[in-house]
């Protein structure tokens, strides 16, 4: 009821305005591809039905409120499909005339779907895929990457480790391709900032039951053995995108050391306890709307749509190319509850953003760390800097 009243009031207010503004409709879609997957190790992290969509809902409210003062209306369609239905779902979205598409997909799906969207002149916001190649040789001119790359997350962890003077790392990675890719990102980060992988081991995903009544009994015996006799190291870095072993590492290591990466201190774009830089009010709005804490996917979808909304109000346009050009221009900046404006890298369409280091309860630190300098922006010390990216799509 309150909402209806507010809309009504907003309409009244609009009627009373003297400005003569052109009405603009901004139609977007969130396409979420849900592959079959195991439940996460911790039930605190189970996927909610509205994963990501909740962020879109909030963004529509935020953009819509601003829109009432300008005559802009925002409508975002939300579609969740299994991988085999993804292409048809995108076709349907494009057939609806929607040219702003937020994709929650893995690397391969993202590239394929982005190419299909490009045929119809649509802009894609990548809210999930973290592959470094997507920002490098596999980049696309119609894709804005709002999700950070694996390289950005790894660099955020690496900077903190080196700020702490923990230069020797014990890297433990999973056996699946995405775990290997993440391990690569950590190896590169070590090289980039002067860390050293003192020891490296692979924890094989044998497909066993990860979460059983007695799981911890076995883990308690196995993990110390698995981690013994490692070369001297100050920190353990876990590369486990598959969520197979990392949460068990802290407290079960042979040599007691802090864990970072997939467990312990984790690099995230947001978490439900983040309060700095006005985030409290953002969290409150989100929780009131959804009845749960925010997840990274929600934030990344919200941020994608806020990028769109911000570009719309500054250009007074809903033309995809105009929006894309503005977003990657020097003019664009957006507040995202991270203390600094977020902007796009014009060389590969990646959103520059600080990465929060989260211990499961609080923001422990935020990268980039003090002292990691850059001639353009400290944020460019995270991920692929201009000379490191071979992307030419935006040239």
């Amino acid at each position, binding site marked *: 009821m309150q909402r209806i009243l507010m809309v009504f009031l907003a309409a009244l207010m609009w009627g009373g305005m003297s400005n003569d503004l052109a009405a603009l409709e901004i139609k977007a879609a969130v396409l979420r591809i849900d592959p079959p997957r195991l439940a996460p190790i911790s039930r605190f992290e189970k996927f909610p039905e509205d994963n990501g969509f909740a962020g879109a809902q909030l963004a529509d*409210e935020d953009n819509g409120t601003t829109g009432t003062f*300008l005559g802009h209306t925002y409508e975002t369609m939300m579609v969740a499909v299994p991988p085999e239905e993804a292409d048809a779902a995108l076709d349907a979205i494009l057939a609806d005339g929607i040219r702003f598409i937020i994709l929650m997909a893995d690397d391969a799906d993202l590239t394929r779907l982005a190419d299909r969207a490009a045929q119809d002149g649509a802009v894609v916001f990548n809210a999930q895929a973290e592959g470094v190649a997507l920002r490098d040789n596999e980049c696309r001119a119609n894709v804005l990457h709002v999700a950070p790359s694996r390289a950005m997350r790894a660099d955020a962890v690496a900077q903190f480790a080196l700020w702490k003077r923990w230069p020797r790392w014990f890297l433990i990675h999973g056996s699946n391709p995405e775990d290997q890719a993440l391990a690569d990102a950590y190896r590169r980060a070590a090289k980039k900032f002067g860390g050293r992988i003192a020891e490296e081991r692979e924890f094989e995903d044998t497909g066993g039951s990860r979460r059983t009544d007695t799981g911890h009994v076995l883990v308690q015996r196995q993990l110390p053995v698995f981690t013994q006799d490692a070369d001297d190291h100050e920190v353990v870095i876990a590369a486990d995108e598959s969520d197979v072993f990392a949460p068990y590492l802290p407290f079960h290591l042979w040599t007691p050391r802090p864990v970072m990466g997939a467990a312990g201190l984790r690099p995230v774009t947001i978490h439900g306890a983040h309060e700095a830089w006005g985030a409290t009010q953002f969290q409150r709005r989100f929780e009131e709307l959804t009845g749960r804490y925010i997840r990274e996917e929600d934030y990344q979808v919200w941020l994608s749509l806020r990028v769109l909304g*911000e570009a719309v109000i500054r250009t007074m346009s809903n033309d995809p190319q105009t929006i894309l050009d503005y977003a990657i221009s020097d003019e664009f*900046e957006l*507040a995202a509850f991270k*203390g600094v*404006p977020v902007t796009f890298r014009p060389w590969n369409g990646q959103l520059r953003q600080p990465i929060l280091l989260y211990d499961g309860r609080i923001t422990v630190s935020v990268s980039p760390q003090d002292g990691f300098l850059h001639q353009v922006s400290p944020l460019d010390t995270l991920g692929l800097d201009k000379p490191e990216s071979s992307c030419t799509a935006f040239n």
Partner: protein
Amino acid sequence: MKSLFLSAALASVVAMPAMANKAFVSNEKGNTVTVVDTDTWEVLAEFDAGNRPRGITISPDGKKLYVAASDDDTVRVFDTETYKEIHTLPSGPDPELFVLHPSGNPLYIANEDDNLVTVTDTETRTILAEVPVGVEPEGMGISPDTKFVVNTSETTNMAHFISTEDYKIKHNVLVDQRPRYAQYTDDGKRLFVTSEIGGTVTVMDIDAEGAPTVAGKISFDVPGVLPEWLQPVGLKVTADGSKIFIALGPANRVAVVDGATLEVKDYIIVGQRVWQLGFTPDQKYLLTTNGNSNDITVIDVEKEKAIKSVQVGQQPWGVVVSPN
């Protein structure tokens, strides 16, 4: 003998200089208000002010102190002599900043969580109007002719010009990211809006009807300080319009800007995370709240120098000084 002594004491009270005003500082984390003597710069008292006190202002007669107790969803009104709570005012949820009509009534309140500006009658203690504004309303300013209240919305990035007559929005002006504070010059011909994340102050010329035109922007540059840290928040202008003081948040500095040329003249180093500003009534001093060092800095307005810092409560947010 006793009565003689008493009258002597009374005489000395009367003879005291009129400049002994009180500065009231809201402490956001400490849930208190600290009272500081602006003559001796000593802390006179600290009293409980509700949960998360932020916005703070005082009635024109100096008798009532208004405190936005954000987490209590109310505005608390305190007696400036006894520090006792007189009553509360309905404010709408999560009141953050507000501005009082120069007559003392009504109070215009930004409700951060609900995208509203609430107009509250300070006498009848009733809500006169709720005005829907942009997302995360924060800054509140009133034009000297009292015809407009300006609200800034942090996520919408606009300054909304609300008519005090019919409570309708007459103008919306887009500004840079996270607008925090709105302040008119005393002659009403200019309006300044600070943008925390944008790192700028938007300067608007205001015509006779109160309509705004963007005249320019003030930006900041301090060697050795990352540009991202130069985040303008609180802003005050001297009565003659010659000097503009701008609190720069995590840069721990207050910028001094020439009112005529809009050039930054100097940066005054103050405490950590400088947030809001308040003049003494004679405008001899400007007080800054420093949220991370839990103190206020006293700036000599003429000399443009920090002369003193005074420890207050936990995370000082806003400051107001009692009128003469």
